[in-house]
């Protein structure tokens, strides 16, 4: 029925077209690993066997694309992605303050702080790698360097995906996608260069730098404003420092305004946490769009 392994993999992909792209990628990697190992064993046992004949028996044992697809769906249904929550209907106010008990909001906050560091690293790696690869291409040893760089981009993309899934709760690939095995390294370089996924990953690495910086600046700003509102009564009453200092004159807020100021600070931070949760989800979608190949 299937003449080549690629045909089986394509059929499996078609069968899983409604599934999460990350799950499809995992299933493809597993099937590729199994089928090529089994084919190799079949060839060792009988060198004369054709790929189609050997594949027939192997697939009978491995399962049809339909059976395999349903097995992945079944297990995925039982294993929820990290941090997936069962949603309970709650009042608007409950939802607003419930953000503090939502691991996705804290995860997003942590992710955005980390994004500053990873963003700087990805950007420097991408820019250095690109310029070194391009300028060395005039020498013959420039080609292996370019290949290594592009492979490192793939590796970093997988790593970033794990981070996104752990902190933002968006399902990302758990396996690297190896589609160029058995190729000469030069063909492999060509395949990587012509693969849209590689370039999208590079775009992500550069975009992450901008986003990471913006996230970091906004988080630090809003955190300090909220904290100064909340800490204002303490500063005025215990430390006896005027909250506003201008031209050598200290101004004090009247004590009746303390509850309002503290409440304002808390509300500001709670609103911000809600926004962070939303932006985290958006970022997850961006990561999925750029890092997970169709």
């Amino acid at each position: 029925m299937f003449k080549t392994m690629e045909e089986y993999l394509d059929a499996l992909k078609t069968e899983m077209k409604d599934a999460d792209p990350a799950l499809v990628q995992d299933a493809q990697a597993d099937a590729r690993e199994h089928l090529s190992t089994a084919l190799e064993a079949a060839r060792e046992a009988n060198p004369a066997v054709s790929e189609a004949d050997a594949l027939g028996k192997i697939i009978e044992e491995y399962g049809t694309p339909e059976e395999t697809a349903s097995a992945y769906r079944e297990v995925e249904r039982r294993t929820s992605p990290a941090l997936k929550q069962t949603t309970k209907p709650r009042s608007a106010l409950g939802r607003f303050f419930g953000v503090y008990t939502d691991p996705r909001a804290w995860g997003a906050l942590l992710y955005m702080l980390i994004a500053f560091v990873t963003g700087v690293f990805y950007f420097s790696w991408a820019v250095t790698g690109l310029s070194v690869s391009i300028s060395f291409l005039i020498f013959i040893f420039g080609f292996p360097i370019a290949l290594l760089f592009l492979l490192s981009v793939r590796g970093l993309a997988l790593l970033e995906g794990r981070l996104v899934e752990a902190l933002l709760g968006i399902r990302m690939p758990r396996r690297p996608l190896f589609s160029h095995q058995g190729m000469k390294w030069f063909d492999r370089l060509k395949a990587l260069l012509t693969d849209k996924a590689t370039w999208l990953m590079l775009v992500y690495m550069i975009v992450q730098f901008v986003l990471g910086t913006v996230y970091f600046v906004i988080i630090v700003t809003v955190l300090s404003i909220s904290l100064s509102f909340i800490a204002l009564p303490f500063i005025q009453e215990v430390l006896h420092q005027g909250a506003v200092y201008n031209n050598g004159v200290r101004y004090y807020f009247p004590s009746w305004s303390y509850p309002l100021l503290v409440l304002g600070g808390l509300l500001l931070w709670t609103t911000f946490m809600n926004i962070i949760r939303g932006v985290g989800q958006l970022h997850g979608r961006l990561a999925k769009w750029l890092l997970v190949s169709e």
Partner: protein
Amino acid sequence: MTEISSHTRKFQKELNAGTSSLVLLSVLSRSKEPMYGYQIAKMLEESGPEIPMMKQGTLYPVLRSLEENGLLESTVEPSVSGPPRRYYKITNDGREALKEWAEIWKITKKFVDANLKG
């Protein structure tokens, strides 16, 4: 394996959902070396009855979910030819779980047998 009714197939599938995890943990706990999917499938084929209980393709998602739950851990290693292979190894949590699961299996087996005899 000619004509199997859809009821039977569904029953077999539901049974396999639990037993495959138990069998995979047990195989990996007995193996000294980390094993990859194809190796495990071959081993099960040799140990099992003539009729394969489950398709080999269904083992992979189970291995993956066991790893996600911290019962197995895996490393990817390049192979001489073909794509890299994922080698699975049982963790300490996995061994703990296996002990408990094997106990549950014994009790379940006894319970089902006792009721089948009537």
